[in-house]
């Protein structure tokens, strides 16, 4: 036994020695890959959708080419990204779709995250059908007529009901409750990731098959697969307060940026630039389409946008 205790003591003390004695600060945990070779590094979090990739690609390009930083990107979903921001593992989150709980915890209570202002893009979630189908059956665009078309939306996965395709588990969704509360003859099928959902939508569109899907704007895919929104009962402030009883549409959300509090204070030019970064839905879609559809690398797409929109980004650097 004595051997084991002494080994434990040795292990703990060598841990402490290695990292400098005393308490370790869990709020200052930069990535081991940051600031290598004497370059200043900014670590940006990327979310799994292409719009978020576009924000990061352009910010990365300007940080590297105009301000001389080195940029590391890490793919994390929004909620874990909040956690990573508070620990300093990433410096910025450029597109947040509204997480009041996290905001309360980290921005107001713990003050480890600082708001970074608006991104300039307004997000909206809704239910969509392909426009080729909406043209043939104009009344599909009202939720009251959805049940009439349920069997046209049937797939092997949804069984005897119509399929309402949902996407990644990281998205905000009330769809299960909506289907139940609006008494719709539909089954929510989770594609499990945006990549799977997009791939399936494109396959459907190629064959001009009808489908009903949870989707959101801004999104580049609208340019490839034109879609029409199905009107749900209108959104009113607070109608989505109880997740079990939701029976209304999704709100329009101005997307927000957030910075690690320490980085916001000491991040110098990079932090100032990221706070000023603000562009439009069209700008974002332009870059997204280049990345996702033309399969350009995010860097090339960002370069192309930067070369043709000097007046927009010059303002972010001043």
């Amino acid at each position, binding site marked *: 036994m004595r051997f084991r205790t002494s080994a434990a003591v040795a292990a*703990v003390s060598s*841990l*402490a020695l*290695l*990292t400098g004695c005393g*308490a*370790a*600060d*869990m709020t200052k*945990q*930069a*990535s*081991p*890959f940051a600031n*290598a*070779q004497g370059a200043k590094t900014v670590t940006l979090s*990327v*979310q*799994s*959708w*292409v719009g978020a*990739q576009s924000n990061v690609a352009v910010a990365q390009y300007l940080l590297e080419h105009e301000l001389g930083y080195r940029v590391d*990107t*890490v*793919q*994390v*979903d929004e*909620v*874990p990204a909040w*956690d*990573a921001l508070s*620990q300093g*593992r990433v410096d910025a989150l450029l597109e947040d779709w509204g997480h009041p709980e996290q905001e309360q915890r980290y921005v107001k209570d*713990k003050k*480890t995250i600082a708001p970074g202002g608006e991104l300039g893009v307004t997000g909206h979630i809704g239910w969509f059908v392909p426009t080729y189908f909406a043209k043939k059956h104009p009344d599909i665009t009202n939720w009251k007529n959805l049940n009439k078309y349920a069997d046209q939306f049937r*797939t*092997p*996965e949804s*069984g005897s009901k119509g399929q309402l*395709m949902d996407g990644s*588990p990281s998205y905000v969704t009330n769809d299960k409750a909506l289907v139940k509360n609006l008494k719709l003859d539909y089954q929510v*099928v*989770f*594609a*499990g*990731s*945006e*990549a*799977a*959902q*997009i*791939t*399936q939508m494109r*396959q459907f569109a190629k*064959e001009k098959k009808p489908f009903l899907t949870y989707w959101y704007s801004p999104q580049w895919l609208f340019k490839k697969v034109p879609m029409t929104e199905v009107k749900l009962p209108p959104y009113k402030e607070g109608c989505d307060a109880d997740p079990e009883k939701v029976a209304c549409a999704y709100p329009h959300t101005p997307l927000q940026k957030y910075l690690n509090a320490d980085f916001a204070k000491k991040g110098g030019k990079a932090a100032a630039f990221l706070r000023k970064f603000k562009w439009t839905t069209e700008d974002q879609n332009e870059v997204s389409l280049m*990345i*996702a559809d033309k*399969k350009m*690398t*995010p860097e090339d797409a960002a370069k192309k946008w930067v070369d043709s929109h000097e007046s927009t980004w010059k303002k972010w650097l001043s």
Partner: protein
Amino acid sequence: MATITANPPRVGLPGLLKHRAVHKLLLLALAAAILVPLANARWASGTWPSALTVDFSEPLAKASDWIIDNRDSHPLFLYFFGHVSNVVVIAVRAVYLTLLAVGWAGVTALGALVAWRVAGVKLALGTAAAFLACGLLGMWVPTMQTLALMVVAVLASVVVGVLLGLAAGLSDRMDRVLRPVLDTMQVLPAFAYLLPVVLVFGIGVPAAVLATVVYAAPPMARLTSLGLRGADKEVLEAVESLGSTARQRLLTARIPLARKELLLGLNQTIMMALSMAVIAAVIGAGGLGDRVYQALASVDVGAALAAGIPIVLLAVVLDRVTCAAGEKLGAEPEPHSGRGWLLALAGVVAVAVAGRLAGRLDWPDSWVVAIAEPVNRAVDWMTAHLYSGVPVIGGTADWAGHFTTWVLDPMRDGLQALPWWAVLLIVAALAWVIGTWRTALTAVLAMAAIGVLGVWKPSLDTLSQVLAAVAVTLVVGFAVGIAAARSDRLERALRPVLDVFQTMPQFVYLIPVVALFGVGRAPAVAAAIVYALPAVVRITTQGLRQVDPAALESSSSLGATSWQQLKQVQLPLARPALLLAVNQGLVLVLAVVVIGGLVGGGALGYDVVFGLAQGDLATGLVAGGAIVCLGLMLDRVTQPTERRAKKGA
């Protein structure tokens, strides 16, 4: 004569087995006759009775909140976890900076020269080519990040594994305590580890390294213990008679005698760590895994492949080099081995310095071959032509639809319609017939735990997908394995293909799988088959090839056709290997259930991904726990006890 030696086990064993199996089943039926009416009277319900569930979501949510609120202030974090995290970060950073400082030429030279000393010229050339390919694909920096992560994770796994293995190898009591722990660690799907470590360490490198250690240390521990226990008794006695202390005996005799097992353990640990390095991308570990994962977001198979190939290359090189080192162990040491190493070291230093002087530390941007575009075009062509409208056989979308409606749906509905006690009885019967009452008890308890966790229905949904995937895997795997066992040429041709499928990160083939089979459970099953097939093919081939050649010869001299030979001699004699293939097929299929969740598999896999994405520990941990229980149950149901001790690797 030899046919006689082959015959008795075929006739005798099954007879004996049947006899014992009937006994066990009768006993079980008796127990059921008493217990089922009781259970039915008390909790009359088809699915798991809600009275018997425990809701863990509240305490888990509280625990998660407590950790997040106290992570920056509680002494446990400030003085323990914080330091662990810092040590990991510092170590990974040190390795990463060293690799960058040595430069691409230096790293390539280092890899090649180490391979040359350990495994010969051929592998040295292969290693150099592999490193250069990583650069050519434009993945040099991510490859170095992954390598840095791997070095630290493997070192830590080896230290932990050897310590556990020493304890288990030297003390019988420790062995008994550790064996079920290691068993459980091996059947746990990797994703189940991610949530708890993320909670404590947050996302990023420290969590990734620790999750990797949990995953990769068990084989090292097992093989260390196996090596220590397997040491030649006579040698040990001789050393003891010389009057050495226990510690001297350990250092001078037992450990050196076990070095072959130690090296095999290192090999296994490296392979497992590498497969985890990719999964760890989900929790923000960076490196190649992250590139694969990011490429998924823009539905870009080509970019994912460009990041996936370096992982395959690293895995193949590391596997071959450590294997070659193991084979060389028994041989006489070369006369000038010291000088060779010195020469190698000098070569590396020279190349690194030259690279530095030439200012060529970073991989030049212009030396990048863009493979993404042609790959994407090929994938598009394939899916456009196979998805639907193929004459006669129908498109892949039709197959997927039929598979869902005719196989998956009935299986799921059937399992979910079974009364809960019937499921427990079936599990008990299967596990008891093939093993002992202990394995049966473990299996039943694991299944019951799923009910108690409150995820009975989704678990049976997942189980139906796993069973369907395993069935297809076994049919295809046995067929290919038998073919490969009968033709050396086919086996040689298959080897690189199997290597690629075994080590290619699963994220890479998610998009093609969806493009071919649509969203739902069918693509999830397809992804699982792709992942589990190589192991089943390998084990089958090996098992068939190890059948005593004498038995084969004598049967052919008696005029047996090659089909008769296969059916009556090879397959029965290879039965243990085939059973192992079934077991491994199940475990591997279960390991990709979570990946299935990403393509519409739903059920437990989706819940685990949901938990990670939403930071919702209650959902994620409970689903992860249920996958673990399913794994334990399936392992016990398919693993005969007598082979348990040999499970080593």
